[in-house]
């Protein structure tokens, strides 16, 4: 069976990879949007923290015998705490300054983290086995669906929509939204805003690390996996705009699919298609698809 001369097997395979990439774009841009909302900082080290998540899972398995399922919970917690330490010791001092300093500081942190991992692990990359429970796959007749990939997509959707629900529909989320609008007023109502900022940063970072653990069995675990991804995620954020949580999720998934389709029909352009879309969106809708301009 062919669609536009492309075997459906190949088409579906690429769409699946696209959807997986899209899930990572969605989780990472969601984290960036949450952090930006409250801290007014674009977290350049997001990619490095994602990489730390993947390495955390690998180190846990190789040296400590921690299995995938434990890592899925433990690694984001550990990396999240690491993030909170960064926030308490460094980012905290930048809130009254121009936003650009936050970008520069986290860029420096990304270089440090990446450099340390490169020094320790080289750049060749390590592979992480798919957990036993999720190895193998389903034969859907028209394509073969590896179980692990299905799991990544499902759990990413749950995490994304779970985050959306917490932020948009719960009391805790209402504090977060209030803090995004007007932190001084929220503080006056007796909410501990500095603590909330720390926890928010920790949560955003934990999301990145969670994506890293999910990614470990799919991609090679290597120190530069994050920096290559984060630039694409920045383009995703520019396209979607950071004003809306749902916008980040939808844009991330959608662009992953578009990238997958491009890989089928015009593979040479697959690395650049998201940047080209960004250019077009900037021309037609400068504030982004879901953005409110300042």
């Amino acid at each position, binding site marked *: 069976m062919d669609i536009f001369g492309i075997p459906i097997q190949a088409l579906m395979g690429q769409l699946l990879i696209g959807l997986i990439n899209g899930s990572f774009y969605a989780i990472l841009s969601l984290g960036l949007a949450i952090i930006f909302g409250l801290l007014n900082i674009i977290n350049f080290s997001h990619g490095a923290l994602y990489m730390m998540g993947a390495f955390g899972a690998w180190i846990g398995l190789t040296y400590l015998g921690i299995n995938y399922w434990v890592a899925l919970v433990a690694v984001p917690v550990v990396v999240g705490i690491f993030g909170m330490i960064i926030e308490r010791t460094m980012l905290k001092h930048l809130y009254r300054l121009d*936003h650009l300093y936050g*970008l*520069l500081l986290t860029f420096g942190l990304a270089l440090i983290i*990446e450099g340390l991992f*490169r020094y320790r692990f080289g750049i060749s990359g390590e592979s992480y086995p798919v957990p036993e429970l999720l190895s193998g796959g389903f034969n859907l007749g028209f394509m073969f669906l590896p179980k692990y990939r299905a799991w990544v997509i499902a759990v990413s959707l749950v995490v994304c929509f779970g985050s959306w629900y917490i932020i948009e529909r719960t009391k805790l989320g209402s504090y977060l939204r209030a803090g995004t609008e007007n932190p001084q007023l929220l503080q006056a109502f007796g909410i501990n805003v500095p603590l909330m900022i720390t926890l928010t940063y920790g949560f955003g970072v934990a999301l990145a690390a969670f994506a890293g653990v999910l990614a470990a069995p799919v991609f090679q675990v290597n120190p530069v996996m994050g920096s290559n991804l984060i630039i694409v995620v920045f383009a995703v954020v*520019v396209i979607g705009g950071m004003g809306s949580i749902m916008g980040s999720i939808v844009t991330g998934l959608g662009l992953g699919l578009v990238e997958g389709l491009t890989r089928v029909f015009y593979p040479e352009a697959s690395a650049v298609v998201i*940047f080209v879309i960004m250019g077009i969106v900037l021309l037609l809708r400068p504030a982004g698809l879901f953005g409110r301009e300042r």
Partner: protein
Amino acid sequence: MKGKNIGWIVLLVLGLIAPFLVYPVLVMKILCFSLFACAFNLLLGYTGLLSFGHAAFLGWAGYTCGYAMKELGLSPELGLLAGTAAAAALGFVFGSLAIRRSGIYFAMVTLALAQLMYFLALQFPFTGGEDGLQGVPRGRLFGLVDLADTMNMYYFVLAVFLGGFWVIDRAIHSPFGQVMKAIRENEPRAISLGYDVDRYKLLAFVLSAALSGLAGATKTLVFQLASLTDVHWHMSGEIVLMTLLGGMGTVFGPIVGATVVVGLQNYGAELGQWVNVLTGVIFVICVLAFRRGIVGELAALIRRSGIRM
């Protein structure tokens, strides 16, 4: 004004004697990066726009210059011109898109566009992909001066640098420069005073890109090589670091920053992987405790001690 004249004289004297004290190729590298950093500072330090994509201008000017000289057989002055023009054109495209967003988005847009140009450099056949464009001939300047001679090359690079630096200095101290500073300090106010802010931003962006291109083309001439390193985002970060470390928004700061960083990379080559870590550490220290940069701090120190310059 007097302090600035002293700065110019020191720069000129240092530039003339440096090749006798230090390995000339290293000084040429420093000069190229100084020009690049000064061009970048025009945008970050004076207009307040953080571009995270300046590597694209450096690298693509290098490719253009290298291609023009190696494959088309153009003379060095035309090669430089071609590189500069290519960077200016690219700067116009980047600038037109990026100024549609401000602040943090501006940085992300420029970074993403530069990454696009990186992938294009990787895929286009004429750039040589992973190998880069090697063995670019230096040629004869105006058909007279043989640039294969290191000293000839050095003084030509010095002349290019001083020319570029003079243009930047003039731009900063012109009415155009005053408008740029007004945009940096208070954009809504500049708009309400009737300035077409977007046009000024675009002009500053194109000027900065063109001069970055001049630096990149000159660098290709010096090393006879145009490679992916110069279009990679690491390079965009490095130029931010040089400017920040030297002192953004100061005339001479970027030169100091470029000298320190290039020197560090040169003498710290045995550090290997640690260079990246060290770069990151300097970034963090600069942002947390040293935001005025070396020249900015010195100027503040001099002001405090009451010495009149």
